[in-house]
């Protein structure tokens, strides 16, 4: 996932770097507040561990091996803010000393691997762990967190690649940087991560965590007292990102409307017809058709739909949690 230089435009790199500056500032402040004294050696040695964790080759079925990033693992062990700084320093050494990952794209790489990955992974882990308060819940949280974390990071990288041909073209219309649109970069980045890298990340995270927990439970980060509030921050962040969907040229695969289905290409030739069942079938008028609400600009409609979707999901989780608790109490009586 290390983006080399010249795949992203300098402008994109500048934006990503600027986005990381407040994150780093807050991270240093938070770590200072949590561990004021031992902060410096902790950051340096944490970075060394994060660098070395990326060196481990994890066996995969079929005799091949893959390596994990370990972002979620570090976030669970050290806390997300310390993980952010550790991975940043590790990435800087890789870029500056080993030539692995670009210098200009350092900001983008940090955004994906030092910010998105540990934070998404950690807060999913924490959310599930806090709502299902058993050992099983903790492990499910870890599996979901590390798997989703690395995939969201890969997805971010895919978007950064994919918007290049849209935004930066030469006078003759030729793309200057990564030439592939979102429709190519998203599957190219996410499929290998969904199938392989995500699995490696999960295996490594669960195995190392359970070892540390068994051998030295005191060293694991205990987490802030603020409980699951942070999940709301994560959701808000994701909502803000949804208009990115507008950038995609086509409709998402499998989300065609009947007017689009005849243009769908299968096996090299366009479908050219609308399946009869779809033409006269049951037409489901959703509350907000096509994510755009009439009278609103399209982007705002997207955000509104995302807010509604997120709220519905939260309600769903709360109701499930409530019903479960109720059941548990009645069982006690």
């Amino acid at each position, binding site marked *: 996932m290390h983006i*080399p*230089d*010249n*795949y992203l*435009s*300098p402008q994109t*790199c500048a934006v990503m770097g600027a986005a990381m500056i407040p994150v780093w500032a807050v991270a240093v402040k938070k770590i200072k507040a949590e561990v004021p*004294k*031992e902060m*410096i*050696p*902790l*950051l*340096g*040695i*944490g*970075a*060394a*561990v994060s*660098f*070395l*964790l990326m*060196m*481990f*080759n*994890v*066996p995969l079925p079929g*005799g091949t*091996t893959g*390596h994990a990033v370990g972002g979620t693992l570090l976030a669970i*062990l050290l806390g997300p803010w310390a993980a952010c*700084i550790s991975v940043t*320093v*590790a990435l*800087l*050494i890789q*870029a*500056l*000393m080993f*030539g692995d990952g*670009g*210098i*200009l794209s350092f900001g983008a790489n940090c955004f994906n691997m030092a910010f998105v990955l540990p934070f998404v992974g950690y807060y999913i882990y924490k959310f599930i762990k806090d709502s299902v308060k058993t050992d099983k819940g903790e492990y499910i949280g870890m599996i979901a967190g590390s798997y989703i974390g690395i995939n969201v990071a890969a997805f971010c990288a895919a978007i950064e690649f994919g918007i290049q041909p849209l935004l930066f073209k*030469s006078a003759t219309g*030729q*793309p*200057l*940087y990564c*030439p*592939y649109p979102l429709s190519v970069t998203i599957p190219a980045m996410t499929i290998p991560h969904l199938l392989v890298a995500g699995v490696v990340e999960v295996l*490594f995270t669960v*195995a*190392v*965590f*359970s*070892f*540390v927990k068994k*051998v*030295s439970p005191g*060293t694991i980060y205990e987490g802030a007292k603020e409980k699951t509030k942070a999940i709301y921050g994560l959701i808000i962040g994701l909502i803000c990102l949804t208009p990115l969907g507008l950038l995609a040229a086509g409709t998402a695969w499998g989300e065609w409307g009947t007017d689009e289905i005849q243009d769908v290409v299968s096996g090299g030739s366009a479908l050219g017809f609308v399946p009869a069942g779809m033409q006269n079938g049951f037409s489901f008028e959703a509350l907000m058709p096509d994510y755009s609400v009439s009278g609103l600009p399209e982007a705002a409609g997207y955000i509104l739909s995302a807010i509604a979707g997120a709220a519905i999901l939260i309600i769903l989780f709360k109701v499930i949690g409530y019903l479960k608790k109720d059941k548990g109490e009645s069982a006690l009586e």
Partner: protein
Amino acid sequence: MRLNDNRMDALNMPEWLLTDENYSPPNDRDTFVNKSILSFLSILARIKTQDSSETGKYGISAIFKVAFTFMLILLLSLSRSFVFVMIINVYLIVILSLMKAEDIVKILKVSLVMSLFTFILLLPAAFWGNSSSTILITGKVFATITVVNILSRTTKWTSITGALKKFFVPDLFILVLDITIKYIVMLGDFALSMLYALKLRSVGKNKSKYTALSGIGGTLFIKSKEMAEDMYIAMECRGFTGEYHVYNNFKFTIADFGYIMINVGIIVLFVYFGRI
């Protein structure tokens, strides 16, 4: 008499000691252990060799090297001129030719592999009709990777981190970077011995080899926490108060002057070809 009997007994070796042993351990997969060992070894070797890299008495100051390397990367990324990218590539190849053969091989290996990878990646785009950008980006990738590797091979890493001070990077961050590089070596050595132990002790089939790997990762983490505590105590004992200053005794040499002139030339070229 009795003593003799005992001696006779001792001479009569038990049967199982006399039979030929024919144990050959079944083969087991351990690619992942070998691969991990190799990647750790290459990292450690890389860091240890850079420590001995001499910049020479009349070498170029690390500050200029770092500054102009960053500048060159930025110019390469911004440039749309094929000629400019080619000139830079030739310039870098000239610098390479002045280096030691061992370094040349190592740098070229990395930059050629990355350029080839980029070229293959961009090949489909060439069939869609933008072959020019495929070649341009491949050329840019080659130049960028080469220039970073030349910097990291010819400059002590402590000088690189020290040079960062001139770019308003906080002292604290430079200290953290230095600690990280030192502890990559220490923890890397530690992990390497554990990997060797795992390999040596796995005779024949070892079903718990996979769990052992997580043990190595976990032990590494616990060890790092202990080391961080020890280091903090050691720092405090030596009077560390949380303030850290990086000192630089900087002298301007003729080599610096020549290097600056070359880079001014590069900027002029960039502007000139940018107009066309």
